[in-house]
Structure formats: structure tokens, C-alpha cells
């Protein structure tokens, strides 16, 4: 158990080095000229060939691969990610500015994944092969086949186009004026909903929530559809176990059997998958934010990709890879801690 955790922790730096290596390899497919745009604040300098040549030498862009990698890593460790042409600011600044919006979206999306996914999964298993089970199951498969961008556009069409309830963006214009100017509004966490509550400003809280609901639904539905399937099969398996039959034979009422006896054991695989599903939502951030023009990291990454701002795109990938590696590590370790069968090994 302890050796497992130590092994995982020791592997972490190796994986992270591998990740940077992979990203740099992809980056090296570009010509030095294309990479140079990530290093300079003024793209006009690229038009002068001598100037560009000098800059390429200065930033070690025509060095052989291993040397170039070392220079790149050195810069990375110093926290220098270069210049983002798409955001017109240093990459690091662009990231830290947009990070809270994405964090807020992802945090809220965890709630429906866990609640709806597990709840429907248990219902589905208890009503195994009923009409209800079939309906839930088919809905989950359809949900799972529905690409995020189509589902998102559909949500936007219904709730904004037709009903006008859930507008795109992060805040209405009047709320932006208050939040971003900082007059009578202090940003403690940069998560607008929390800040609004801390400031006691209920209208802003409601406005932020109104903008969040549609992206949350869009980002989370694939994950809860996936979790539903896992909960269902785990519950089905557990309900067929001998100890459940014994409990029933002893006359324990059905509610206790399902929710106390079976569900506890069935939840072990579900909890690991819940962690993976939440981490899996990271990839959906790009699409969701693009559909709803939600000003977070994903939206920025997509527009950087369209504008061929390579430096920003690889920084974004690096950030998300690190988030995913660390997230997976936390999930695996906490799984080992939760499950007594693993813990005792």
C-alpha cells in the first residue's frame, strides 16, 4: 500500500518529463520562424529577415533537438511561457487571467456528474430490464453518442434562442461593469459566484449563475451518462451477491438492502470512475467554452489554434496535461485509501 503510493509519486516526475518532451517534439515540427512568434512581442519583427535570423539565434531556435529542449525546459522552469499573440500578453498572464473562469465551470460541473450519474445508475439497476431501466439506458447511450458541440448548440438554441433564459458569455454587461471595475466589488477568489456572495451582491450572483447553467449542462452530460453506466453495472453485480440474497432472505426490507447493503459496496468502482469522469471533462472545456463564448482557458485555446498562435496552444496543452496527471494521481491514491481490499495489501 505505502510502496504503491511511493512508486506512484516517484513516477510523477518521469511522466511530467515525458509530457514536456512530447510537447516539445510536436513544437519542433514547426520551423524556427514559426516558433519565433512565441518569443517576441512584436510580430512585425518577423518581416525583417536579418532581424528574424538574429532572434532565432538568440533564442536557440535552430539548435539541435536535445539542446533546444534543454533551453526550452530552462525557460519553462523559470515560468516563462513566452508571448501569446492571440491574447496580446505574456502566456502566463493570459492563463492566470482565464483560469478562474474555467475552474468555476469545472467545479460546478462536478455536482451533476456525481448526483445525477449515481442516482440514475442506482435506479436503473434496481429496476433492471424494466421500462424505466431501458429508458435510462437508451437515454445514456444517445447522450453518449451526442457530440458536445452539437448538444451545446442545441442547449444554446433552446435556452437562449427560443426562451432567452440562459445567455452566452460569463456575465451580463451591467454586471461586468461592476465586477471588473472593482468599484464596490472586491474580487477575493475571482470565481464570480463566490465573490458575489462574499460581497453580498445577490443580483450579480444570480447573473453569473444564469450564464453558468448552460455550459455546466453541456460539459457534464457525457460524464454523468458514463458514470450512470458504471453505477448500473456495478449495482447489478453487487445485487446478485450472496450476502445481498442472505439479507433479503432474513427479511431485511428492500430499501435497506439496496441503499445500505448493496450501494456501499457497489460504490467502490464508481468512486474511481467518478474521479476519471471529472478529469475527463477537461477535454470538453475547449468545446463548451467555444460554443458559449465563455471567456476561459478553453475558449482562448481554441481561438489561439485558429490564429495559429502555436505558443499559446502548447502552453495550454502542457497545463491541461499536468492537471490531468496530478488529478489521476490523486484519484488513484485516494482509491487505494478508500478500498479496504487494496489498503490491506
Amino acid at each position, binding site marked *: 500500500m505505502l510502496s504503491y503510493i511511493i512508486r506512484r509519486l516517484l*513516477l510523477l516526475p*518521469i*511522466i511530467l518529463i*515525458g*509530457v514536456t*518532451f*512530447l*510537447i516539445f517534439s*510536436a*513544437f519542433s*515540427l*514547426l520551423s524556427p520562424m514559426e516558433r519565433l512568434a512565441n518569443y517576441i512581442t512584436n510580430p512585425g519583427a518577423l518581416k525583417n529577415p536579418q532581424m528574424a535570423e538574429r532572434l532565432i539565434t538568440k533564442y536557440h531556435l535552430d539548435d539541435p533537438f536535445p539542446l533546444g529542449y534543454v533551453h526550452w525546459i530552462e525557460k519553462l522552469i523559470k515560468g516563462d511561457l513566452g508571448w501569446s499573440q492571440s491574447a496580446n500578453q505574456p502566456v502566463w498572464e493570459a492563463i492566470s487571467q482565464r483560469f478562474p473562469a474555467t475552474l468555476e465551470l469545472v467545479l460546478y460541473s462536478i455536482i451533476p456528474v456525481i448526483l445525477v450519474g449515481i442516482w440514475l445508475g442506482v435506479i436503473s439497476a434496481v429496476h433492471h430490464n424494466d421500462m424505466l431501466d431501458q429508458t435510462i439506458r*437508451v437515454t445514456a*447511450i*444517445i447522450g*453518449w*453518442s*451526442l*457530440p*458536445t*458541440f*452539437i448538444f451545446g*448548440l*442545441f442547449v*444554446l*438554441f433552446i435556452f*437562449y*434562442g*427560443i426562451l432567452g433564459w440562459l445567455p452566452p458569455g460569463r456575465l451580463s454587461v451591467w454586471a461586468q461593469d461592476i465586477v471588473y471595475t472593482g468599484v464596490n466589488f472586491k474580487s477575493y477568489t475571482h470565481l464570480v459566484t463566490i465573490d458575489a456572495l462574499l460581497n453580498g451582491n445577490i443580483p450579480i450572483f444570480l447573473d453569473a449563475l444564469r450564464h453558468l447553467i448552460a455550459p455546466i449542462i453541456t460539459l457534464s452530460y457525457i460524464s454523468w451518462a458514463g458514470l450512470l453506466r458504471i453505477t448500473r*453495472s456495478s449495482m*447489478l*453485480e453487487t445485487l446478485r451477491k450472496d450476502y445481498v440474497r442472505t439479507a433479503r432472505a432474513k427479511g431485511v426490507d428492500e430499501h435497506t438492502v439496496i441503499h445500505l447493503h448493496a450501494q456501499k459496496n457497489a460504490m467502490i468502482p464508481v468512486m474511481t470512475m467518478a474521479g476519471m469522469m471529472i478529469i*475527463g471533462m*477537461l*477535454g*470538453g472545456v*475547449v*468545446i463548451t467554452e*467555444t*460554443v458559449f463564448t465563455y471567456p476561459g482557458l478553453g475558449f482562448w*485555446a*481554441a481561438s489561439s*489554434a*485558429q490564429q*495559429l498562435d*502555436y505558443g499559446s*496552444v*502548447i502552453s*495550454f*496543452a502542457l497545463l*491541461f*496535461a499536468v492537471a*490531468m*496527471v496530478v488529478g489521476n494521481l490523486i484519484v488513484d491514491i485516494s482509491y487505494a485509501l478508500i478500498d479496504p481490499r487494496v489498503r490491506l495489501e
Partner: protein
Amino acid sequence: MNRILRKLFSNASSLVGIALLFIFIIIAILAPLIAPPLSEDPYQIPRMSWDIAPQSPGFLMSDNIRDIYTVMGIEIKWNKAICGTAEGGYDIFYGLIWGTRTAFRIGLITVAIAALIGVFIGSISAYFGGWIDEIIMRITDIFLSFPFLVAAMVLTTILGRGLDKVMIALIVFGWMGYARLIRGSILSAKEETYVMAAKALGVKDIKIIWKHLLPNTIFPVMVQGTMNIGSMVITAAALSFLGVGAPVGYADWGQMVSFARNWIIGSPGYAGQYWYAVFYPGIFIVLFVLAWNLIGDTLRDILDPRLRGEL
């Protein structure tokens, strides 16, 4: 094998999947008859007008486009946009029909190559074990460290637009699941007596993998492949939607949805004005992916011994 086919055809949801898939295959094969190409490159969607705004179903080819075809001496085999036009006057119906071929190409080619690479890497890793296994599995972990869509987006951005680039990106980040799967099954099959016997008889390693291990472990890979086709097609469509996938005007469902993006809200007072621009390509993607998922889901249930006898 017979048992699998019987189950596939006796299960309602997989029957729906098979029927849908059959329709798509017919559309893909008959594409030149259903929507005859107007230009040299059949995958380039013909434009029906130069308008930016979508045109409703039944729109007739505008005169200036007709003139261009006449001047170029190209026969105009049809002139009606049955499903309307997308942003920029691209004919939706034509895009749907030829987009079916694109979807099959993306799905089948990426999954086939990714599975081959994965099976190759995974079987080497499992069979030799030791430090070879350790290194290969850590490399697999590194590739798995990226969210699939993010990784594919980065690589296509760097490689440039084009369907081939999209497929390369999907393959580069799509083989790991197969490698892990085949490694797992070979590791358990390796302990079987028949493999030990073959080894004791001095059969070569490659031959043991090829003749004895793979045939017994390949079915799970096929199930995974079936389930994977849908997600490959979705990801390729998502890349086009983000504007880094197929080139502009290429018959690709994802791009057609992205054409519709700016028009989804409609005009004031008439929210559903441009419904057709997103509805048709959207429904094609969903049904195509659904078909594969329904079949894959049934295959997985057949494979999963815990659920065997349940269906």
C-alpha cells in the same frame, strides 16, 4: 462467431444500429448517384450562392454561380438545394451525402491503424515483460496524459489543416487503449498451458504471439474498435468545428455544424430561422455515431462474462 451474430441480430438496440449502419453504407456507396459532383474534386461542396447567410431548403442555384459553371463548360446536373445552404452558400444536401464517405474514412482508417499500432506495441510489451514492458507502459502513460481532444487539437494546429493531418493526430493519440487492452489479455493468456507447451517445444517468440496469443485476445480489441469509431468521428468533427480540421468547403459534417454556429440563434423574433443549417449535419453525426455505439454496446455485453446469459 455464430453465437455473436445471433445475439447481434436478436437484440433490439443492436438491430437499430445495424440498420442505421446499413443505410449509411448505401449512402456512401451511392454518393456519386445521389449527389453527382459538379467539380473535379467530389469532396469539395459546391456553392449555390455567394451569400453569407444560409438559404432555406429548396433554394435554387443563383444566377452568377450558374454563369460560372456555364463559362467553365461544366454541366449543371442539379440546381436545387434540397436541405438548404450553409453559411457561404455551401449546399447542405451534397455535404451530407459526401460527408458520409468522409466519416467512414476517418472512422475506419484511424481505428484500424491505431488498433494495429496498439496491438503491436501492447503484445511486445506483454510478451517480453520486464524492463521492456515497464518502458513501453510508461510511454503509454505519457501519451494518455493529455485529454484526447486537446492533444488532437494541438497536433492538427501544428501539422496544418487537412483531413490527413486530422487522421494522423487521431492515430498518434489513439493507440494507447488498444495497447493496454491487448497487454492485459496476453498477460493472462501467457499463463495458459498451451502457450507454455509451445514455448517448451521451442516455438519462436514471434510465432507464439502471432499464432497462439493474438487469435485468442483479438476479440476484445474488435469490440473496443467498434466503440472507438464513434468517438474518432466525433473528435474529428469537433476539430473541424473548432476550425482546425478539414479545409474550408470540404464535405465534412463537423465543418457544416461549424458553418451553422453563427446562425443558431436566428433573427430577432424568429429563433428557428436557420434550423436546417445545424439540424441536418447534426442528426447525421449523431446517427452515425449512435449506430456504432449501439453495435459496440451489444458486443461488449456479449463479451462481458458477468453479464453473459442476461440479454
